[in-house]
C-alpha cells in the first residue's frame, strides 16, 4: 500500500511542476516534455534521480523525467560493462522496450482509429 501512495504523491508532484510551467511560463506541453526528459537525464547523471525512483517507484519512472533517467542510467551502465561503445549504445538499449512499444502501438492506433469531429 505504501508503494502505491508514494507512487501517487511523487508522480502527482512531478505533474504539478509541469502544470505550473505551463500556466506560469510561455512553455507549451511539447517544451515541457523535452525539458523534463533533459532534466531527468541530468539529475540521473548527478545521481539525484535514482533516490527518487527508490522512494516513488513508478511515480518517478512513469513521468517523462523517468525516460531521461532510463536513457542516462542505461548509458552509464553500458559504459561500465563494455567501455566507450556504451556511450552510443546504452541509452536506446535501456529504453528499447518503451520506444518500440510507442512506435508500434502508436502506428496501430493511428491506423485503426479516426479523429472525432
Amino acid at each position, binding site marked *: 500500500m505504501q508503494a502505491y501512495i508514494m507512487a501517487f*504523491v511523487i508522480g502527482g508532484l512531478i505533474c504539478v511542476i509541469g502544470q505550473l510551467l505551463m500556466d506560469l511560463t510561455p512553455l507549451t506541453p511539447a517544451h515541457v516534455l523535452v525539458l523534463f526528459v533533459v532534466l531527468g537525464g541530468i539529475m540521473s547523471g548527478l545521481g539525484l534521480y535514482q533516490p527518487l525512483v527508490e522512494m516513488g517507484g513508478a511515480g518517478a519512472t512513469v513521468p517523462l523525467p523517468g525516460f531521461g533517467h532510463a536513457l542516462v542510467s542505461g548509458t552509464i551502465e553500458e559504459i561500465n560493462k563494455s567501455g566507450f561503445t556504451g556511450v552510443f549504445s546504452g541509452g536506446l538499449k535501456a529504453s528499447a522496450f518503451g520506444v518500440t512499444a510507442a*512506435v508500434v502501438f502508436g502506428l496501430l492506433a493511428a491506423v485503426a482509429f479516426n479523429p472525432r469531429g
Partner: protein
Amino acid sequence: MSVSDGRQGQEEFQKWYQARFNQVKPKPPILKNVFWAFVVGGLICTLGQVIQTYFISLGLSQKEAAGPTSAVLIFLAALFTGLGVYDELGRKAGAGSIVPITGFANSIVAPAMEYKREGYVFGVGAKMFVIAGPVIVYGLVTAVLIGLAYWSFR
C-alpha cells in the same frame, strides 16, 4: 493622410489591443489546474505501480519490469487516444495527462491520426514524431553527452 501615418496608427492600435487583450484575457485557474494535474498524474503513476507490481510478481526484477510496464501504459494510452477519451481527460488534467509516459504515447497517436489523409508516409509516419521526435533527440543527446563526461572522468 500618408501611408506611413496609417501604418503607425495601426501599430498603435495593435499595441493598445494587445494590452487590453492581456487585461481581459482570463487568467488560467492555476489552483484548480494544479489540483487536477496532481490527482490525474498521481493516479496514472499509481496504475503504473500496479502494473509494475504485477510484472514483479511474475518473477521479473524491478529493472526488467520497467519496460513491460511502460509498454502496457503506452498501449492503453494509444487505445484511449484512438477512442477520443484521452484528449477528453487532458482537457481537465492538463500536465497530469501530458507528463506521464501515457502523454508521450498520446503525443504520437493524436497528430498521426489527425494527418492520416496526408498519407502513410508524410501523414501518419512523419507526424507521429512531431513531439516524440524532439523528446527522443534531446533525450538521447543528453544521454550521450553525460555518457562522454562519465567515460572521460571515471
